[in-house]
């Protein structure tokens, strides 16, 4: 079982797996990521900065998870640091054509699909003094 840390920023969970996503860990991770996205959530950030290897089972899981979220009008946004070997792999399999791939969590949270809802959330809250 893969370690997973989840931080919640506004209504957007930021999930960071601590290890490789492969045929052994992908099914369980898919379930746990799905649990993190509530019905009113605009989506989820999957931060791969602590993931060294991502195999085809992991890539399939990411494509499928993204598709499922789209059906619920939610967005999966990936974070892959520029120094990661996964950048080349992501380009090879076409991940950036299917979903936003960002260099940092900050950039991911600024993706319109996530940021818009975060702003709506902010305006519905009492104004801060």
């Amino acid at each position, binding site marked *: 079982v893969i370690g997973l840390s989840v931080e919640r920023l506004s209504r957007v969970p930021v999930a960071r797996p601590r290890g490789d996503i492969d*045929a052994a860990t992908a099914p369980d991770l898919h379930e746990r990521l799905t649990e993190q996205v509530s019905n009113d959530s605009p989506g989820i950030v999957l931060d791969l900065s602590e993931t060294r290897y991502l195999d085809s089972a992991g890539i399939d899981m990411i494509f499928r998870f993204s598709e499922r979220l789209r059906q619920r009008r939610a967005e999966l946004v990936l974070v892959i640091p520029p120094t990661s070997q996964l950048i080349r*792999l992501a380009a090879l399999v076409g991940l950036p054509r299917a979903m936003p791939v960002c260099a940092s969590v900050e950039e991911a949270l600024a993706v319109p699909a996530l940021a818009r809802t975060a702003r709506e959330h902010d305006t519905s809250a009492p104004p801060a003094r």
Partner: protein
Amino acid sequence: MRRVDPESTHSAALTHAVAAGARDALRAGEPSSQATPLGDALALTLEAEPMVLAGLRRSVGLWLSFHGVEEQERFDLTLAASEAAANAIEHASGAGEATLTVTCERESALVRISVRDNGRWRDSGPYGRGRGLAIMRALVDSLEIEREESGTTVVLTKQRSAGVA
């Protein structure tokens, strides 16, 4: 000349491997590695379970870094080996005590990784296998699949670009 004793390095790699019997496989040597000294080859025998993949990547990665393979090529070869093993594991299902054997060899600038299983590949596998093959093809220079009665062997080779030891 080696600054590191190959035997002890292999011991370190094998300690990390989840392979039962890997040391025996290493001592026995593979028929295909006749011309290579012991320190240039690594052989692992693994249970055909997805749980072994992380240990396999760790062992292969250690072996490649011991041979001075740079990070990018190490990533490519390690992931390709892991994909080949995942294929073997998928096709081994229901075959009782299924195992797979991973052999890493080096011949000057060439690295060859063979993944052999004792099952038979189905031509139309479950969803996702096509991508695994495409990834392997993109990461290494050549990919050969040898199908025999006794099992299937995937042979991956990659020419190292620089830093030939």
